């Protein structure tokens, strides 16, 4: 028995769903856009946490940097600083084309800045192994929120608004739904390409036995830093778009939201199965839908239910859904003993 779907059918179905979903449920555009954010968070976390086995609790750092960078770029391109600050939020909307251009430039700046920051910080801290790295990144995320709350240029503790979304672009939810899904798709295929080559195997080797990888001559630190730069790039852009979707950036609750998005990205990847290409996507979908349902039907108890869900995930699905499938039915993923004992055999006899 083989995996029942080939790639073409699978991507066909996904494309169909991506197009049909917003058409069928126009009132849920914002939630669907959030789903895109969740998928991106969990996918990018998995590069370091899943594929390379380096649990990072600080990836939200790049999300926050991207959020602020995009907002600052937008502000400085089309607005006067003082005026923008005084009338926060009530300024006239800029034209649709200006908005899209400023968003694009903001994304570019966010992506590049995050990559550079990941390079500098990663080179310093990715020499740390395992738990030490996890704790170090946790400090990074917490510290960043506190620091951002003290910088007047970005609104300090009272936060910062993003430009008003222009009417000409249709529904805000739909606009960002498209942005996030396109970004998630680009991210997926980038990762898929990289995991299929030397880069992916190098990260896996580091996860399985870093000392061995070093003994085999692998440039371990370089691969780890590059992995983090890759995550940072997509996270920066995701953060930039997220700031605009919410419309208001609070340093601790939205930008460097370690206690919510920062933890969720780890949970989603674990739930779906870390270290796999589809696991983080599946995990994000299940988590987000479950969370929305809890919010709708258990209001008042949603935090408790979410907590119970988190405990359940860690206790019952330590390997995640994809990990469970792999352990239960390894042949589905191609792990089986070949009857041919030699290359000669496998070429000669197909019977």
């Amino acid at each position, binding site marked *: 028995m083989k995996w029942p779907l080939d790639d073409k059918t699978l991507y066909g179905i996904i494309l169909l769903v991506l197009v049909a979903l917003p058409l069928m449920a126009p009132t849920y555009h914002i939630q669907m856009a959030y789903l895109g954010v969740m998928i991106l968070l969990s996918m990018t976390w998995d590069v370091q946490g899943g594929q390379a086995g380096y649990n990072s609790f600080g990836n939200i750092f790049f999300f926050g940097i991207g959020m602020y960078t995009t907002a600052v770029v937008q502000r400085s391109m089309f607005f006067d600083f003082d005026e923008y600050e005084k009338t926060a939020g009530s300024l006239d909307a800029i034209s649709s084309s200006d908005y899209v251009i400023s968003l694009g430039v903001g994304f570019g700046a966010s992506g590049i800045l995050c990559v550079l920051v990941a390079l500098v910080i990663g080179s310093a801290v990715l020499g740390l192994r395992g738990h030490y790295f996890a704790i170090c990144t946790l400090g990074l995320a917490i510290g960043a929120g506190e620091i951002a709350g003290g910088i007047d240029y970005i609104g300090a503790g009272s936060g910062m608004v993003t430009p008003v979304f222009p009417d000409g672009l249709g529904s805000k939810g739909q606009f960002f739904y498209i942005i996030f899904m396109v970004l998630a798709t680009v991210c997926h295929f980038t990762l898929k390409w*990289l995991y*299929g*080559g*030397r*880069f992916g*195997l*190098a990260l*896996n*080797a580091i*996860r*399985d*036995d870093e*000392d*061995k*990888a*070093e*003994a*085999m*001559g*692998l*440039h*371990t630190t*370089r*691969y780890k830093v*590059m992995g983090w730069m890759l995550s940072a790039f997509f996270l920066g852009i995701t953060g930039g778009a997220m700031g605009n979707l919410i419309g208001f950036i609070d340093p601790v609750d939205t930008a460097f939201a370690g206690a919510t998005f920062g933890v969720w990205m780890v949970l989603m990847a674990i739930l779906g199965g870390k*270290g796999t290409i589809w696991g983080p996507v599946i995990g994000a979908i299940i988590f987000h839908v479950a969370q929305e349902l809890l919010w709708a039907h258990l209001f008042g108890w949603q935090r408790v239910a979410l907590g119970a869900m988190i405990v359940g995930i860690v206790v019952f699905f330590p390997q995640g859904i994809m990990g469970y499938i792999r352990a239960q039915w*390894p042949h589905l993923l*191609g*792990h*089986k*003993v*070949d*009857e*041919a*004992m*030699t*290359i000669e055999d*496998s070429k000669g006899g197909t019977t």
Partner: protein
Amino acid sequence: MTTHLLEVDGASKAFGGVIANKDISIKVPEGKIIGLIGPNGSGKTTLFNSIVGSHPIDAGSVRFQGQEISQMLVPEIARLGMLRTFQQTRIYGKMTCIQNMLISMPHRNTTVTHMFGKFSAPDHEKVERLLEFVGLYSKRTLLAGDLSFGQQKLLEFAMALMNDPKLLLLDEPTAGINPTLINGLIDRLKKANAEFGVTLLVIEHNMRVIMNLAEHIYCLAHGEMLAEGIPTEIQNDQRVIEAYLGAH
């Protein structure tokens, strides 16, 4: 003076008050198979770790192809073409055998296109050929962690060959391997030496294996060089026999 592939000269290493290696000198000429024996705790693995750069030595020098390497890091030394296998056997457990082999290819090319690139068809052919060489071809799509201990040892050996080393340091290659498979392994080690041109430095406790394999043997005891010579000399050396029987 001829330069040897590996020259260890007066190497010493102490861990706190415990002297693990004291003034050890060994020479490994290119193309040979050299043995390293000694009772448990005599400092063989410490010497291996010193040679490949896992920890710095306190005194002495280690030269590989005439180049001083005692201050270099483990991956740098590995990229020069000197690899070691581990006594406890280390493979990448959650990856398939094929993936284990592919990522063991040499890492000397560091261009971005190489680091992010795919593996070529000849790479895959080489993987299959070497897996067939160690008898793991039919298990190639299994996760390496699911293999038996003996098979993992064979895989580790194949991974080392994949890296095109000039010198391979093997730490007890036959430990834990079924006696009937040991003969096959000896043949493969000899073949790797003769056909692929890999020089071997082998730690081994199985006397039958090492006497059969090595052309020259060094014997350590209590961190010091006890004796060296061709296998028959070592076999008949009274000090070696006493060291093994516990006369010290």
